[in-house]
């Protein structure tokens, strides 16, 4: 009788630990093959045939299609440069310069990867439609209320994610540091 209880406890614990660890790693992602520059993280290997098992599991679970290496690379950010989670009720500024690429796009999603509805139907910017300063740098204001210049509405949602995609770019599996890929800064400038 005692043996049965012990066995059952061990099996139950195994299920909880195993499934829990899988759930955690596929939700949060792992550091395997991750390239982190400032607040941005990319996994260039997910666009190749030698993608790691954890990324594969995440991709399949979310139902997304990773961007292929010959196409481009995608960086995500869920927090600003000071590790404060991106909050749709705050004013966030994305500014600076971008790595070499023929085109880039910056898109705002909720944490599940859906676009956020807004009256302007603006979900992001492309490198071509952005208003720049004379030195080529830019500032994108991410806020729930309208801002002058490049305004990206958040719809006031609590948590969001930014995705910065570079198309036709030398940035990829071989990229290691900020010097190869100068990513824009993300700063929370004010919260109500």
């Amino acid at each position, binding site marked *: 009788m005692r043996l049965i209880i012990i066995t059952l406890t061990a099996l139950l614990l195994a299920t909880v630990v195993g499934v829990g660890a899988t759930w955690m790693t596929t939700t949060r992602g792992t550091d395997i093959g991750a390239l982190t520059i400032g607040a941005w993280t990319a996994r260039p290997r997910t666009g190749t045939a030698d993608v790691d098992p954890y990324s594969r599991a995440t991709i399949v679970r979310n139902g997304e299609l990773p961007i*292929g290496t010959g*196409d481009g690379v995608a960086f995500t950010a869920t927090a600003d440069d000071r590790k404060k989670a991106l909050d749709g009720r705050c004013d966030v500024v994305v500014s600076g310069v971008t790595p070499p690429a023929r085109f880039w796009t910056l898109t705002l999603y909720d944490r599940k990867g859906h676009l956020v509805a807004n009256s302007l139907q603006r979900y992001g910017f492309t490198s071509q*439609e952005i208003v720049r300063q004379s030195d080529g740098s830019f500032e994108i204001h991410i806020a729930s209320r309208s801002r002058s210049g490049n305004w990206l509405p958040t719809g006031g949602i609590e948590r969001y994610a930014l995705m910065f995609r570079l198309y036709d770019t030398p940035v990829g599996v071989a990229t290691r540091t900020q010097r190869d890929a100068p990513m824009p800064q993300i700063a929370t400038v004010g919260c109500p």
Partner: protein
Amino acid sequence: MIRLAFTILAGVLLGLVVHLVSVLALPRIATQDAYSRLTPMTKENAVTQLPLADPNTSPMPFMDPAFAQAICRYDLSGGPLKLKVPVSQSYTSVSFYTRNEIAYYAINDRSAGKKVIELDLMTEAQHNALPEDEEVTAADRLIIDSPSATGLIVMKALAAEPGLMTQAQASLATATCTPQTDAPAKAETPRGRR
């Protein structure tokens, strides 16, 4: 006491095994993966235009709203496939995925270097079965080997500004993805207007 510690240890060790097995098995057992989501809304061995990414009706998470997209869901068991994607004004790319969403190949308009991205997709066995001389006569034919018999081809055209979206969609609308049924590969003339 020892018995309890042993139980916990055994549970954690078994848990690690469960974790590894479930991570490795997930690609095979998932039912909400991109291929399964796209299956009801796409035709096999033909090009289907995807609706624009939108807060309510995105077929997949994290789609780039700046792109018009089209899908060719392929099954090579009946023979190789011929793909023609006309290049749009700003940026066009074609990405290939296996049935389990491994991105095994991607090409963009600049690396294709032509007005139309033209590719032949086949399995490795079909590639090996190609007559030797045919490969020589069609030296500029780009042949892609698919690791799996089924999979997805994603064609994307960038609308650099929202106003250019109709143009991007129009250029994808002329893309074709057709099975090569007869042996001479160049027998069929393209239907795309150019």
